[in-house]
């Protein structure tokens, strides 16, 4: 808003945007401000809640676990997503449309359903373990779910579409004739990929990574179901502090911390790629 004033000329179109802007301010900014205030005011005024980041082993461990799981998820889903996006880019158009439909359908299936599906597939009494045991390949069910590995599977699978969409958007913007040029100049397929194509997709990789990482920070359902109680991430902890132990100050501090981290990451993301192209994302 202030930029219009600063440049010295008032743009009347601000008046058209004003109602929506006002609504957002009242409905979003005010509650968020309230959360921010709560983090400084409850249980007593001061920075007490924020000291916990360094003082409390629990809080620092939670932050560390969350970041670690999100990083692994990011690497895994961007790598897998890159392969799918690459395949989609080079597929014939009917095939590509089919792939896109499958992608979007899986994208729209709720995280809750997907988590339970993983339990049914890979759980103790799941399809895979039962098949392997029936086949005499293993004597005891493999402990795939209800641990950190299970959580990572669930998170990665959920995040792959988030990686594919910006990657595909980026890849589709590349003039593929450069790869032909590279081949004609004597580079092998592998050389062409690593020296021509991959560098051109760097903005897509950065955008996909940040998007996946940011979205992963808020995982709540997946670790709760697939982690067997031992894999704790920030979102679930916030919910416990809010509803069970009623330590709203701690909850608000962690929520603020997440919000600030996200805003910082968004700022970084914006430097690499215009946000609109990322969020407008995939060709629909």
């Amino acid at each position, binding site marked *: 808003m202030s930029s219009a004033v600063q440049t010295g000329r008032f743009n009347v179109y601000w008046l058209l945007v004003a109602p929506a802007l006002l609504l957002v301010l009242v409905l979003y900014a005010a509650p968020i401000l309230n959360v921010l205030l709560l983090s400084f005011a409850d249980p007593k005024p001061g920075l007490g809640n924020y000291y916990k980041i360094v003082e409390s082993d629990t809080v620092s461990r939670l932050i560390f676990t969350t970041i670690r799981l999100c990083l692994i998820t990011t690497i895994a889903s961007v790598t897998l997503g890159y392969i799918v996006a690459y395949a989609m880019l080079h597929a014939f158009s009917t095939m590509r449309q089919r792939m896109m439909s499958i992608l979007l359908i899986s994208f729209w299936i709720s*995280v809750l359903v997907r988590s339970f599906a993983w339990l049914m597939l890979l759980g103790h009494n799941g399809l895979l373990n039962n098949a392997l045991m029936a086949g005499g390949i293993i004597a005891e069910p493999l402990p795939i779910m209800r641990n950190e590995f299970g959580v990572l599977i669930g998170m990665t699978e959920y995040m792959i579409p988030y990686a594919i969409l910006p990657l595909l958007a980026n890849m589709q913007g590349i003039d593929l004739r450069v790869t032909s040029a590279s081949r004609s100049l004597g580079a092998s397929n592998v050389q062409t990929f690593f020296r021509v194509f991959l560098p051109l997709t760097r903005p897509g990789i950065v955008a996909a990574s940040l998007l996946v990482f940011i979205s992963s920070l808020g995982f709540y359902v997946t670790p709760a179901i697939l982690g067997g109680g031992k894999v704790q991430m*920030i979102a679930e902890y*916030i919910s416990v502090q809010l*509803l069970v132990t*009623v330590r709203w100050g701690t909850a*608000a501090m962690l929520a603020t911390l997440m919000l600030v981290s996200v805003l910082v990451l968004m700022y970084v993301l914006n430097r690499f790629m215009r946000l609109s192209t990322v969020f407008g994302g995939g060709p629909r």
Partner: protein
Amino acid sequence: MQDKMFMRDLARQGALAFKSGRLDRRSFLALCGMAGVATLAVRAGDAEAAANEIVMWNWGGESEKCHGDAIGKPFTAATGIPLKFDTSGPLQGKIKEMVDSGKVTADVCDADGFDAIALGKSGHLEAIDYNIVNKAQIKEGVAWEFGVGVIFYGYAFMYDTQAFGGNAPSGWADFYDTAKFPGKRSLYKWANGSIESALVADGVPKDKVYPCDVPRAIEKIKSIKADSLYWGSGSEAHDMIVNGEVVMGMIWQNRGKAIEERTNGRYKLVMNEAIAMPGAYIVPRGNPAGRDNVMKFIQQALQVDSQLAILDCLGMTPSNPEAFAKIPEAMQPYAINSAMNIDKVIFNDPVWWAEQGGDAVNAFLDAIG
């Protein structure tokens, strides 16, 4: 009691993600878990309460029908006031939020004993009017200033009868003994019952459990950490047992009967040393139906017929001593206050939990994480 609420949250989050399907909205929701929870809490009441009805805030599922039949029907017949439900689960944080916001839409909450103590102390509840509610019909020790222990439920455990040959675990000491009874166990994720079970297993006499020595309990729990899983909802506890994920699992005792029946006794409930929790009816301050009406409702819930109907429908044990002797034969092994069990169980101390529970939950989460 976290369970219904938890599942509901999961479902809602799932639904939100599904509905929005757009990146910006979804990621914002996911990132601001806080905002999500706050909107749910606001939406929970839906302003259902008007002057001439009682709104009961419970945990949904079967309890809606059971509370309706057992308490609602006789109450409406006697007073003409209908009973309605908000099934979003009255967790302590949500009750506090509702009263603080000034928009109270529930009259009576199906909560825990420690909620009655904690929220009573912080000024969020109406005091119980013992001129209307009859103290003689409440088990000794659970007629509090700001709440009434109307039913009892408990943390017991079940084991797989095929897992240990002829050996049968008989108490928490066996539950924590991974040498004698090898295999995985499951405990409740938010510390209730789990802390007490660890102390009893470590040799603390039943009557010395409170005040809980939390560090000692944590040490004991850590000793089985590699062999343990943790559940947050009743259905999860159930699944872990019947899917064979654990050989012994802590469980709400009222679910034990169904599991025993459905598996033809393969999984067996151990009620010895179960931790008995008083389920409290509490009234948010400024409840819409007024104090007198809701007190009459609570009084109805304590009547023998209502108490036995809840036992039959939900497996929750009566608090009214007059009902103890009338617990049916088939329910005796599963009911907390039956002659068979009343001396074996450990009664939860809600005052300790109200004062120390927050620290205990966080210490516990820290230990298992």
